[in-house]
């Protein structure tokens, strides 16, 4: 998150003033000396570099099959080029827009509801005077974070079972009937988003609580002297203090607008809610690994990644202009 923003900026600044040839040579010699002296540290980095190269950079080479007709006999390099065929095929299929719409709506609701709740929770917890109650609430609300997706989905299906699910039982008096929530596509987004909030709101609040702990107590004391209520102090002291954190996290979150919790969506899917629950990532999985349409699947995945990357850059630039906080 703090990704080298300062070192990078410094470097670009230090490069600007023109150096005399002697200075340049001296700098080069110094770099060389440091590299020689610290060779051990490069050895420390070697395993990570190898790992990242194999698992993150080698796949980038494979992206070219999005523009080829991949044939495992011919290999990645040997398969024939087909240009934009797979992209055209995707955008000409009626399915494309449904997938994009489903992905965006799931993501949009996740941000709309899932993003503010941890902030509100952190502000409430931070204003508590009773340390023990605060600790207790934190311990409890972090707990669901450690539950695996498989278990969470198992719980959701059991709780929403029309025959025995307790949520259905609790809602029955209000809705007048026992609704099969998992069997109706229109409830899918709500199930996904609300269960996400249940699982991760507490954990998500930690980062804001950490930021709030940096607020100077003197600010609060001065405000109390001036007669500000606790509620007012939240708005005028606490909230402004965490705005940079909020912006950075929002940028990060928007950068993955086209990414949804893939595992969870896949596990929550059933034939009845597929109209709403089929998203780009689950579709690429099915297409690629279940139907072995490697090239087509890679093309759709690439489209998704590129859009994500562009959104991240745009949002970051926007955030920088607006507030001076940015990722890089």
């Amino acid at each position, binding site marked *: 998150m703090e990704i080298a923003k300062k070192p990078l900026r410094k470097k670009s600044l230090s490069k600007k003033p023109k150096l005399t040839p002697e200075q340049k040579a001296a700098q080069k010699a110094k770099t060389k000396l440091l*590299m020689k002296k610290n060779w051990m540290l490069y050895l420390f980095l070697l395993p990570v570099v190898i790992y990242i190269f194999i*698992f993150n950079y080698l*796949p980038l080479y494979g992206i070219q099959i999005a523009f080829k007709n991949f044939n495992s006999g011919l290999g990645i390099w040997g398969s024939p080029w087909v240009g934009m065929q797979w992209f055209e095929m995707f955008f000409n299929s009626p399915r494309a827009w449904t997938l994009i719409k489903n992905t965006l709506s799931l993501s949009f609701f996740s941000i709309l509801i899932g993003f503010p709740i941890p902030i509100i929770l952190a502000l409430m*917890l931070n204003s508590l005077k009773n340390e023990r109650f605060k600790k207790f609430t934190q311990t409890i609300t972090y707990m669901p974070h*450690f539950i695996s997706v498989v278990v969470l989905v198992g719980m959701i299906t059991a709780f929403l079972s029309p025959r025995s699910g307790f949520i259905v039982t609790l809602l029955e008096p209000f809705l007048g009937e026992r609704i099969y929530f998992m069997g109706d596509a229109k409830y899918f987004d709500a199930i996904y988003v609300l269960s996400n909030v249940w699982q991760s709101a507490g954990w998500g609040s930690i980062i804001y609580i950490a930021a709030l702990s940096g607020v100077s107590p003197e600010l609060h004391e001065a405000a109390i002297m001036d007669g500000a209520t606790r509620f007012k102090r939240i708005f005028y002291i606490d909230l402004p203090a965490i705005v940079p954190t909020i912006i950075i996290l929002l940028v990060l979150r928007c950068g993955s607008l086209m990414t949804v919790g893939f595992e969870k969506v896949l596990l929550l899917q059933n034939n009845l809610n597929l109209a709403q629950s089929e998203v780009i990532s689950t579709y690429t999985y099915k297409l690629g690994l279940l139907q072995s349409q490697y090239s087509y699947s890679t093309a759709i995945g690439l489209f998704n990644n590129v859009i*994500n990357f562009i959104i991240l850059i745009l949002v970051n630039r926007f955030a920088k202009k607006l507030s001076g906080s940015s990722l890089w």
Partner: protein
Amino acid sequence: MTQANSNKIKDSKADKIFYAIIYIILAIVLVIVIYPLYFVVVASFSDPVYVNSGEILLFPKGVTFVGYQKILEDTRIWQGYFNTIIYAVGGTVFGLAVCIPAGYALSRKDLPYRGVVMALLVFTMYFSGGLIPTYLVVHNIGLMGTRILMIIMGTISVYNIILIRSFFSSSIPTELQESAEIDGCSNEKFFTSIALPLSKPIIAVIALYIAVAQWNAYFAPMIYLSDSSKYPLQLVLREILAQTNTGTEITDPEALEQLNTMAEVIKYGVIIVSSLPVICIYPLIQKYFVKGVMVGALKG
């Protein structure tokens, strides 16, 4: 912390109302978070008949342990447990051994080109080859379906390396390293005898991050493993949880009915059995988890 001083001042009426509202909201939040977990526990040892009819809400009815008995008889679960422990322990050791030295090296300001390495690592956080190209790489390097892959895949994360780097650069002063260097201390000596002993908190945090992630991993094992004897617990769990029992060979309707009734209780039981280790150690390690996020947050 921030409110320690305001204790002395009497709350105004507005503040009293404010606190009352906050306590009420938080109490509701607590109930919403705890109840589903509580329900799973209660349902797991209640009589299947009551569980199935949805009659259980607050207290167990007709306490029985048949669900657990059935679970303990299931060899798949034991095998899954065994595999998951291998993947979790192996992955944690591997991840730490690779990430801690790397994070340390990246924290050193006197390392030329560390910015380049950092940029290369960070790029992978935002752009990836995608599912199929990664799958093809795994296939081509011959790790498909191996336990080794399960141990190494996903245990090295750039995010963790950044956390480690932040920890080292904020907790080990440059002066300390410089003076050790003047005294003739080599890089590896400094790392093993000074930096490592000082970094216990971050080691704990990263170890726990990796272990929990490995314990809960589902997708990678699902696509890369085909041999069910290597399945981790989560895959076994999914099999059991997704069971509908309509496909079983039992033709006797009464036996089938009984099996269906049992199924629900077994589901709740396996949830408990599989989550127990994580839930049990969680309160003990909670302070470390929070610390880990803090390191990242304060730096960011």
